[in-house]
């Protein structure tokens, strides 16, 4: 697991002069609470530079449970995932229990070839969990998108373990209310629609707490409107820099 390195107190620092290396230089699995984790699992680039700079490892982690929380389907989640799904589209992309029938032509327009799409419609939630586990364990699919409303904690843990078994990109799309519940997922993002894009809240990540949502313009923009000039330019969090609120 991950060890949180506790900074030595000032007194210790004084007694041991600066021979001690920085903790993050010791081992790739060490990082400070103010930094983003690095050196974890293999990651797939999100394709959105502002988001990539905010994620530990610099992308969507592979073989890990990633939770996307949203109020309702159809707020731009597929456009958010489009670059990552395109990257793993040489293997199958499984849509498990989507809330509405997926439209293959629209997904094809997003760059996901229809031959690689698999739509599973289990009748019971136990079947859905079973199917998710089978897909993850077989490891022969590029990505699994699993829409689930009510999942118990132990099922999530089981799926997270199954995901670590292979190299499948695994997203669970859950309702926004699930943000209150504990989850073993190391990365949880809450998505909210915004004009021309998405507001992303970082509910949980291996890195500093971030309160302000990240606005992410989505392409292709469906409405050809003015460019997003009225947005403040975001400065990406420096991966190693100390956050001012932690210093004081």
């Amino acid at each position, binding site marked *: 697991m991950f060890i949180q390195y506790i900074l030595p107190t000032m007194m210790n620092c004084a007694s041991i002069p600066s021979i001690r290396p920085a903790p993050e230089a010791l081992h790739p699995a060490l990082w400070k609470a103010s930094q983003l984790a690095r050196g974890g699992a293999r990651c797939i680039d999100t394709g959105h530079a502002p988001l990539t700079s905010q994620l530990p490892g610099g992308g969507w982690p592979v073989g890990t449970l990633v939770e996307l929380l949203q109020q*309702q*389907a*159809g*707020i*731009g*989640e*597929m*456009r958010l995932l489009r670059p990552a799904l395109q990257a793993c589209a*040489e*293997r*199958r992309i499984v849509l498990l229990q*989507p*809330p*509405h*029938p*997926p*439209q*293959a*032509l*629209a*997904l*094809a*327009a*997003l760059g996901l070839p*229809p*031959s690689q*799409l*698999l*739509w*599973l*419609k*289990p*009748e019971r939630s136990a*079947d859905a969990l*079973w*199917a998710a586990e*089978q*897909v993850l364990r*077989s*490891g*022969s*699919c*590029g990505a699994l998108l699993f829409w689930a409303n009510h999942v118990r904690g132990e099922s999530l843990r089981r799926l997270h373990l199954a995901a670590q078994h292979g*190299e499948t990109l695994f997203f669970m799309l859950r309702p926004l209310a699930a943000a209150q519940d504990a989850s073993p997922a190391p990365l949880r993002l809450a998505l*909210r*629609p*915004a*004009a*021309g894009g998405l507001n992303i809240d970082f509910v949980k990540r291996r890195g500093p707490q971030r309160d302000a949502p990240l606005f992410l313009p989505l392409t*292709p923009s*469906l*409405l050809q409107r003015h460019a997003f000039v009225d947005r403040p330019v975001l400065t990406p969090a420096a991966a190693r820099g100390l956050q001012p609120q932690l210093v004081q």
Partner: protein
Amino acid sequence: MVLEQERVLACSALARAAGVGRGMRRGGVLMLLPEARLLERDPAREAEALDAVALAMLQYTPQVALAEEATLLMDVGASLRLFGGIRALCARVRASLDALGFTAALSCAPTARAAWLLARHGGQGRRQSGRHGGKNGGAQGGIHDDTSDRARDSAGSHAHGSGHGNANGSPHRNPPAGIRAARALRMASLERRLDRLPVALLPPARAYAAWFEGLGCERLGELRRLPRPGLQRRCGRELLDMLDAAYGLCPELFDWVAPPESFRARLELFDRIEGADLLLAGAHHLVLQLTGWLCARQLAVERITLLMEHERGRVAMPPTPLEVALAEPTWRDEHLVRLLRERLAKQELPAPVIGLALEALQVRAMAPPSESLFPEPGGTEEDRMRMLELLVARLGPENVLQALPQADYRPEVANEWVPVQQRVRPSERAARLPPVVASLPRPSWLLAKPIALLMRNHRPYYGSSLKVASTPERIEAGWWSDTQTRDYFIAEGQDHTLYWIYRERIIGSGVDAEPRWYLHGLFG
């Protein structure tokens, strides 16, 4: 317990605890245990059971021979490398026998007769110690391989389906009885082992047991030291031949089991079974036989049928078939058993099942696995097919779908999904796609049924008042089947969610002048 000629031949551990022993008469048993189930020994079923084991063992070597006293001999000399050595092979054979529901004494030796002797000795040791379990068809066996330089036909191992038991023909699972595999891999160690075996193990010597005892000749080593001409005169040629064969001094000939032309195996269950998932153990038994048959004939199976036989008599019913078709032919049992487990869990039985039969309907030549130097990350195509088959087996073919979109302006018609097992050629799929997929705005999620929208202040309302944010796309098509005349818009809600809505253009009658709006899709 099993009786032969009114005497107990084998009994369960429970019966032994109650004081039942071998050779007891029927009356005595009934006095001790009035509720005991007494079964007559059935040689025909024993032979059937041994045949079943022989068929299953064909997956480890093509050379399996039936030997006397319910023993199987397997020549595993050529299989050692494939299965990763003698220990791994023994473990696999043992696991298979366990799955078949038999206990066995396995032994390995460089000659077949020696393996036979060691296995018989192992089985008898069990018998004398009185620990042998019940009416299950035991199997003693020996694997015998030819690692010594005395290389003749490296005759086989034998699994020895015991002399007792299996009168009820039911596969009876009992915990591995801890019959140690006697392994003698070198000639020197084999000779040491053989010298210690009792003389009475050799069937031709049993008639002269009293004479040997009188001579003080109890072990095979002592028997070998007797003068050969005198031994041949008194006991016959057969004894010397067998002894020579065991010590590797003369060649052995075997009548190898030939796999049948077509496969059909039957199993009678020990009870009436009402839950389909309980049939899995029996099905596994049959699948193991199928595996052996497939390996021996170098075939892979594409389609199998499991017939569940119901009770005969007044309520006679035809057997319930359960057909399993495979996209990728296989000759391994794990995948078949996993598929059968999912299918059996869904199967509903109209009546209790008393028997199972397995048939291989469609087979083809085994294709050798293509190994690449660098394994693909996503597994092979067969792995993918297996995963899909497993999903289809549990979820049903109509719930595992692949996309087959076609160029049509009507969104419902364009969005076609077909079962994943339907074979679609890539060229056909490409021909159905519209030339430019990105030309039209289409939502990722298309509602199964359009939702009629409320109107507030002359605006469609869904959660919040919707603002039309795009130019219309007029779709007017399908006069030949179901006409659609709609104007589609992208609308934006107050929370900036985008919706795909349409206005029905032709309204049924003239009186309804208000335009009707529907929500049809969501932009994912």
